[in-house]
């Protein structure tokens, strides 16, 4: 009995000593979110999309997301435009050229300091619980193991972006007063 206890104790100690990341699951979540953003863009109309660059620029300050999204959205097009996934710093002027900006939870504090006038025609997607209340348009959340999203269509409209009802009917709609 003592030997069994020692064995179990050893296994527990060994287990606690081992620490490793869970890259696989995180990659999958990022890949799925990139896919959702592709659909958000595909089923939305930008009043001034043709104006800036000649391609659709999807931005994020998260290098891991940028890598994953680049892989997932390779050779995809939005409104006839090639998609380019770009790494940006939230406090830089380069965010001005983003058609869609994804702000992961880890960048929540940086997001609060961003100059919003640089993002007047940018679709703003995040995942922090208060992202929409902090000026965002679309927020991801996890529900029963799946990715779901909420949308503030009135806020999108202020950015001259109109989202199709095909997407809105799948979302949780956040009204302005909320």
């Amino acid at each position, binding site marked *: 009995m003592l030997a069994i206890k020692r064995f179990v104790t050893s*296994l527990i100690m060994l*287990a606690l000593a081992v620490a490793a*990341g869970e890259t696989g699951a*995180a990659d999958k979540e990022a*890949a799925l979110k990139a896919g959702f953003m592709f659909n958000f863009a595909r089923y939305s109309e930008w009043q001034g999309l043709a104006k800036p660059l000649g391609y659709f620029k999807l931005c994020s300050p998260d290098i891991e997301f940028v890598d994953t999204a680049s892989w997932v959205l390779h050779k995809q097009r939005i409104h006839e435009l090639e998609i380019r996934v770009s790494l940006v710093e939230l406090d830089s002027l380069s965010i001005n050229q983003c058609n869609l900006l994804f702000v992961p939870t880890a960048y929540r504090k940086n997001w609060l300091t961003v100059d919003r006038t640089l993002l007047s025609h940018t679709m703003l997607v995040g995942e922090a619980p208060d992202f929409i209340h902090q000026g965002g348009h679309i927020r991801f959340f996890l*529900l*029963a*193991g*799946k990715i779901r999203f909420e949308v503030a269509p009135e806020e999108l409209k202020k950015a001259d972006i109109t989202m199709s009802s095909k997407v809105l009917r*799948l979302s949780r709609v956040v009204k302005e007063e909320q």
Partner: protein
Amino acid sequence: MKYSAGVSWLLCMTSFSVASAEPMPNLDLESLMATDVQATSAMKRAQSAFSTAASLYVLGKEDIHASGAISVAEALKLVPGLEVRQLDNNQWAITARGVAGRYTSKLLVMVDGQSVYNPSFAGVYWETLDVPLYDIERIEVIRGQGGLLWGSNATNGVINIITKNSLDTRETLLKVSSGDQLNYDIGLRHGGNIGSNGSYRIFGSVRDSDAAKTGKSLPANDDAKQQSIGARFDFAPNDDLSILTQFSYTHTDMGQNLKALSLATNQNTLYADRFERDDGRIMARAEHRLSGSSNQMLQASWAIQDGKQLYLDERFQSVDVDYQMNSLWGATQLDWGLNYRNSYLPFEENYIIRSDADIDRLEQYGAFLQLQFALIPEQLNVSFGNKSEHNSFTGWEHQPVARITWQPNNEHVLWSAISQGVRIPSLAEFDYDTGINGTRVGEYFQTGIDAIDNYHVHTVLNGNQQVEPEKSLSYELGYRFSKQDWSFDLALFHTQSKDVFAVQPNPDSANLDQIAALLAQGKIVEAQQALQNTVLEFDVASNADLNVKGGEALVAWRPSVNFRAELGYSQMSYRYRLKENTQPAIGYDSDSKQFFAKTGWHPFKKHSFFALFRSINSDAYSVDDYDALDLSWAWQLMPHSSLSLTGKNLLAGSHLEYDNTSETFTVPNYIEQSVVLRLMAEF
């Protein structure tokens, strides 16, 4: 990495096959909505199904919908390796890695984690389990032991039916089906938002079907009338808390042929009967994310199954409370939980069944602990744990398990498991004395007097309160391989069970020697009187050994989003080792093989085809081998409306799937070809 609020028993996999690494996601919006961030279930927490050390299959909603199935039991035909036998148009015997019985299948069945297992007879009333198929997210099937996480009576496997979150059913859906045996099957569901953090759906259905054309022992009598209502409410006040509440109620009125003891002859007699049953369930679950690495869950549920049929006035209620916590330190996972179940089974004596001790309550409580960690990070994972549970019949029972997976890269996984499962006796085995087919005197001695030789002595199968729980030790070995568009899944198993339920005569019960002496003295009248007062008893015993071994192999191929196919093969040998003068109670020595093929094809934008072929080769059910083919064609009339036509049993024709006649009451019927036309619209 964030875990879903549903830590949980929420498995995954998009749809077709369990074995899949991490391919490029399908960018179609509907596919993304359907994809889980993670997989799992066999481990009762989020985990990749590909690397789970258990024989796991996930039946997705895509297949359920495409198959044209009209009930959960019928949908389970889509699971390779599962034993699914149809007794008549309504009744089923279903299990995994064993011989299925109408009333005894050692299989734990749950709807969203709520058990529908009935401890009176150790089985499931499949015909009254009416979960709307269009609201099922997936059905998780674990072949083999599930006792550590799910408790006793999961010796052969676990089936967990997961319904959709009501956030995903916020529209109105109408389904109307009809066919040559199905007069109508109408389902209506409506869903919507509740404030900004909640959603709901309500649903109802009515079904009316005719009896089959051909009966076996009696004219077929398996018509059905069924009505169901239900609702589900989901609230997520914040990202860390989600609350689910749901209820359902089903009233069933079905015809059945059954056999039961005749008071006049002491013999089983065939009856054309009806039964009515009410099935109600309420459950609530709260899932709470304590931190990025810790979750807890509390679930409470109540279930009722009341029924009336010839000789039986059944009443059953159960209350379940489960608590579970999952924690993560790096790659080390710790899961533990507590459970309490109280089953109320009031009993009224009748001619068929009497109770020795008037036991009307079964109480179970226990706890489980599971630890999972990496011996070699991202390659060699080990998990071990134990569930100890106390039941008021046999006391404390323990179900330890150890599992190991070796994943050298993203394409290969080798896994193995050793586990002990426990099946506690049903109330019928423990306490009831059940009248069974009378024993003919001529089997013991011949007098030459027909009235005596052909007389059937009143015979009773006695429940036994000294019976031991059945303990099964299982060894499993599995291998999975996954490429971008195809996968292979192999599982081998060997289960050795001891203290297995068997039946043995009680030699002291009948005074046959005394009767023989009266006959020898020529006292015929006295002998006849003595016979009428004699009861021959058989006792439930737990003294058999059972050895079951076999394996399941599955190849899945999905070269494009428009085509998918699965080929499966399973084999099992089932062997008893019985004490002298005993006989098996569930099945008998047998060999079973099953070849399985399933394909879904979407050749045109608005048209799709689905086929299921099963070749069943088994001597476990006293019926001929058969090949069954189901074909479906679906036409997408509008973006959210479809018309489908399904032909069932196209090759098998009129055939028997089950003819084990030793079970009390059970009378099988011929299963016939049938056609179902279905219209489904969402708006």
